[in-house]
């Protein structure tokens, strides 16, 4: 049953040290404000799960929150490397990082299986490639009808899923729209969930009969954080800050510039800065 609370309260209540944590959002609706809050609260030894780690996990890894990363594509989209991820994996800074690596198809299927309460997912994949040699979680089953051998991966069932959505209504139902990624599956697959939203409305009003909605009884906590997806974006609210994604490359390249930026913009800040940042993107785009 969704409870509306502050982001700090939500992270305090639902994210613990050592948890497996899926913060999803496929380019769109990445829950950056929640990631910053996890950093501020100093969570440690997390298993971070995400198809595309993106800047959000680069920041969390660089600040020492993560023990393990489960992922399928670890880059800064259209820009280059995630320097903090590479520094952790290649040099163990600020701490060693374990990885479990998959393909997108595998992770999308694994979330889908988690949402469907299945222990594993079956798909046509991983043929002729090396990843199964280094990831023992990639296995197979044989079709009981055709004898065909198909790839399997374990379902993803995180302790906590965190997503950013467009809006919640008074009852705590949550609306997503646009590029919806694997967020619905992540929430349905998880034991607990936090949803940050742009706003809470009286009710959703006229909408598609098939609107993508998470009913209030599927969500643990809702926190209102306008702009909470910046520098990612929120369909109909603000655009993606492509410029920030490019600027991140220089910020994150060296440890000291990274730490300085994180101190100034995360440790010394709060969720309220996101509204201002998102407004700036919208103004620049107008």
């Amino acid at each position: 049953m969704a409870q509306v609370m502050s982001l700090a309260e939500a992270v305090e209540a639902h994210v613990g040290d050592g948890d497996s944590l899926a913060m999803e959002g496929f380019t769109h609706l990445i829950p950056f404000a929640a990631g910053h809050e996890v950093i501020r609260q100093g969570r440690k030894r997390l298993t971070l799960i995400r198809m595309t780690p993106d800047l959000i996990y680069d920041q969390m890894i660089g600040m020492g929150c993560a023990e393990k990363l489960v992922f399928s594509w670890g880059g800064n989209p259209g820009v280059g490397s995630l320097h903090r991820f590479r520094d952790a994996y290649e040099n163990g800074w600020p701490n060693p990082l374990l990885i479990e690596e998959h393909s997108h198809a595998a992770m999308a299927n694994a979330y889908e299986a988690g949402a469907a309460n299945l222990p594993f997912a079956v798909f046509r994949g991983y043929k002729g490639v090396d990843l199964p040699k280094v990831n023992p979680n990639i296995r197979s089953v044989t079709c009981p009808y055709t004898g065909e051998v198909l790839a399997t991966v374990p379902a993803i069932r995180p302790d906590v899923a965190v997503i950013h959505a467009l809006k919640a209504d008074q009852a705590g139902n949550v609306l997503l729209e646009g590029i919806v990624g694997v967020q619905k599956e992540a929430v349905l697959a998880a034991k607990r969930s936090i949803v940050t939203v742009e706003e809470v409305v009286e009710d959703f009003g006229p909408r598609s009969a098939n609107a993508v909605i998470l009913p209030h009884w599927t969500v643990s906590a809702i926190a209102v954080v306008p702009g909470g997806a910046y520098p990612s974006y929120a369909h109909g609210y603000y655009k993606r800050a492509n410029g920030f994604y490019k600027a991140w490359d220089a910020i994150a390249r060296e440890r000291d510039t990274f730490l300085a930026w994180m101190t100034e913009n995360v440790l010394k800040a709060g969720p309220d800065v996101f509204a201002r940042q998102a407004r700036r993107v919208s103004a620049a785009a107008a």
Partner: protein
Amino acid sequence: MNVQNTATTYTPTEMMTVTAARALRNEDVCFVGIGAPSAACNLARLTHAPGITLIYESGTIDTKPEVLPLSIGDGELCDTALTTVSVPEMFRYWLQGGRITVGFLGGAQIDRYANLNTTVVGSYDKPKVRLPGGGGAPEIATNCGEIFIIMQLSPRAFVDKLPFVTSLGHGSGPGSREALGVTTKGPTKVITDLCVMEPDPATKELTVVSIHPGITREQIQGQCGWPVKFAPAVAETPPPTMHELDVLRELHARTARAHGSDA
């Protein structure tokens, strides 16, 4: 103003993009990657293939972006799409469903059988360079009807032996895909900034079938990490037309204006 049909001044990247665009047909359904594939697919859509269906793995189906996306899920892709589906649905019903005719891939490294590496240079556990990883590529490579690869030719990229196979090309040669139960064609074209390669029908080894204007065989060999094979009849790749270049440059200019303003 130059009103000739054939352009005389263009960059190697423009040559590569235009050549890739020309390989696409109006009736294709393309799974598009970010960067050069996205430019090529949209150039095709804005020139000879207005009916082409572009799909990005973020779930956007039949999208017609005005500007090139920086990421695979820019708002522009959703705003101009016929519809947008979830990522699990995209990978299950659309890619695995066998509905995509052409998948575009790039990579950090490629071998002579068009297998690709985007995972690591060095060993997996102690990499020299940790690359982003496979993303959609492993299943794009086997579930699309055929694969076009776009990569700049260079000795670091076109290597004799891959340290890691991220996605399957023609494996170790004829029969490799079939032995794995894969029924799709795999890579049929590798489009570079110097030439176009295609797998030899018999050996499946990448073979130069056309050379871009002004490029020599020696230049190609100099940029390739294995002894290059040339087809019996090597064509000269037709250069970009002024129209193609105008459309491509205008697309890039619009993109720069749009992305420059949103820091």
